[in-house]
């Protein structure tokens, strides 16, 4: 039985009508019962038109300087909103990083690998201005879009104001909050008591949640992240949290990423330095990297090859195929 045929809108209440005739209605993002409620920010509660405007902006290439990139260039649905590249910068720079998944951002307490952005709305400002990403400016975006297609009409209907920085950031955040993923084989087995789980997958799951590996102490349920920042001991030029705190003890610390859909989000680590799940599991089994700030839980695990394979098999059960095939998240154009 498929409990979640589609994670999407279930409630519609007529709340507005513009002179142009666009109707908006409040919506709820359908989510698994084992996820906590979403706390929507005041003034950006989800509506149909806010979602549609956000999606339109998400796929809009006019947000980029050369009109050839959009948010979706680095966050593609089939890859669980990652891009498959080592790092996502369009230009060489010292802080280029592997694109994070956008699944379940509605519950993230902060954003960016250093955790320096407190809201999803604020995060939307970053890629537009960042010279290594879309490299335009909010002023430039508004100038380009104000007469294009039906942006002005959508903006008025969705937020009751002209298209501006407020509307653009809110709409993008509204769309991104709808990207809910919790319908994996693991979820059906663990939360919904399905019997569809192999011996190897069960073995991997037991290892994952064991004291021996402590994987789940950071990749905690239900989102497979505790949102805290740690160092795995990886050494490269990216100093991570130290950029914010100026503390050498924070060097190389990054926010724990969710590993839901991890089968689809290779390559791995903040710098995309590992190409396969086998490589990742082996890295942990060998005690992580050499950097001195490494978290004490990252240490040799003495896993056998069979146990490594079991962990990989378990990780592959975290894929939510309905999520990555949900056409509601694709551009309508």
């Amino acid at each position, binding site marked *: 039985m498929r409990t979640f045929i589609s994670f999407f809108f279930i409630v519609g209440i007529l709340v507005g009508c513009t002179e142009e005739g666009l109707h908006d209605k409040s919506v709820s993002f359908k989510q698994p019962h084992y996820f906590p409620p979403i706390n929507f920010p005041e003034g950006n509660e989800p509506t149909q038109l806010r979602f549609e405007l956000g999606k339109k902006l998400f796929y809009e290439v006019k947000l980029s300087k050369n009109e050839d990139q959009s948010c979706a260039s680095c966050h593609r649905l089939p890859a669980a909103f990652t891009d498959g590249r080592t790092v996502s910068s369009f230009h060489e720079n010292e*802080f280029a990083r592997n694109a994070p998944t956008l699944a379940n951002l509605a519950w993230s307490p902060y954003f*960016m690998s*250093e955790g*320096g*952005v*407190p*809201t999803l*709305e*604020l*995060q939307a*400002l*970053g890629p537009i*201005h*960042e010279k290594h990403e879309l490299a335009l*400016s*909010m*002023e430039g975006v508004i100038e380009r879009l104000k007469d294009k297609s039906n942006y002005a009409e959508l903006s008025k209907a969705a937020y009751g104001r002209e298209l*501006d*920085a*407020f509307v*653009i*950031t809110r709409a993008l955040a509204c769309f991104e909050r709808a990207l809910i993923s919790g319908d994996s084989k693991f979820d059906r087995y663990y939360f919904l008591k399905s019997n569809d789980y192999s011996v190897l997958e069960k073995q991997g799951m037991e290892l994952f949640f064991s004291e021996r590996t402590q994987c789940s102490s950071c990749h905690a349920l239900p989102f497979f992240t505790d949102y805290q920042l740690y160092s795995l001991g990886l050494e490269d030029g990216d100093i991570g949290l130290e*950029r*914010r705190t*100026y503390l050498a003890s924070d060097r190389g610390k990054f926010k724990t990423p969710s590993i839901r859909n991890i089968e689809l989000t290779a390559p791995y680590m903040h710098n995309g330095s590992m190409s396969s799940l086998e490589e990742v599991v082996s890295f942990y089994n060998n005690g992580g990297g050499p950097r001195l700030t490494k978290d004490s839980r990252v240490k040799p695990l003495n896993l056998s090859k069979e146990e490594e394979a079991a962990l990989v098999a378990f990780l592959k059960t975290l894929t939510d195929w309905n999520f990555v095939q949900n056409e509601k998240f694709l551009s309508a154009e």
Partner: protein
Amino acid sequence: MKMKIVNNYFFVVLLAILLGSCGGDTPSTPETKVHLKFIPTFNGQPLSIDSVYLNAFGQQLRIENIQFYLSNIYAHNGSDSTLLKQAFLFTLLEPKTLSLNVSPQTFSSLSFGVGVPANLNKNVDPSNYANSNPLSVQGSNGMFWYWNTGYIFTKVEGRYELTGTPNAPLMDSYAFHLGDDPLYRVLHFNTGNVSLAEGDARTFNIEVALDSVFNRPADPIDLSVDNLTHTTSNFPLAVRVTNNFVSAFHLQ
């Protein structure tokens, strides 16, 4: 009878709203003008973006961009303080005089912060401000960090060359982008007793002696070593340049 009471009630409320919204007969608040004129200089002469200057190490430099926030601009009279302006963004290539409408008063000193105070800096969303506000997305004019939210307090950018050879091309770039709460500084200036009555205007010239950025005797900047900081990328240098920069302000 009940309907009549209700009707009368609505009439009174309507009248109150109409009167409240009509300001034509309300006496206007008496005002004075305070102008703060910021004058960028180098070695005592007006700054020119086309001029080449020498630093304490004999290195040649040109200043191509200066932007900085001033905030919490206050006038003080004893223990009384009047907020004149919450935030102001100075940009080298734009008008450099801040004109403020101020109620008649007496004061003996002015103060302002160089940068943006903590309560306005972190965890704020600039898209909540109107475009005319210097703290808004558009008004900040590139003076906001998006990866670690907060304002860039000061930008000093330009080009340099190390040999000091006259007419040598300035091929290399320097950039000092200074921000974050620990770099916020508050400056005080004695103005002497200033009494402003209705209709009065007073201009204060504030020199911004940019040679201090590079040549402050206590901590000159050697561009061969120290030519780039985005604050987090080189915090010690950001502190040094900040201390040099805030020493550049002089009330004339």
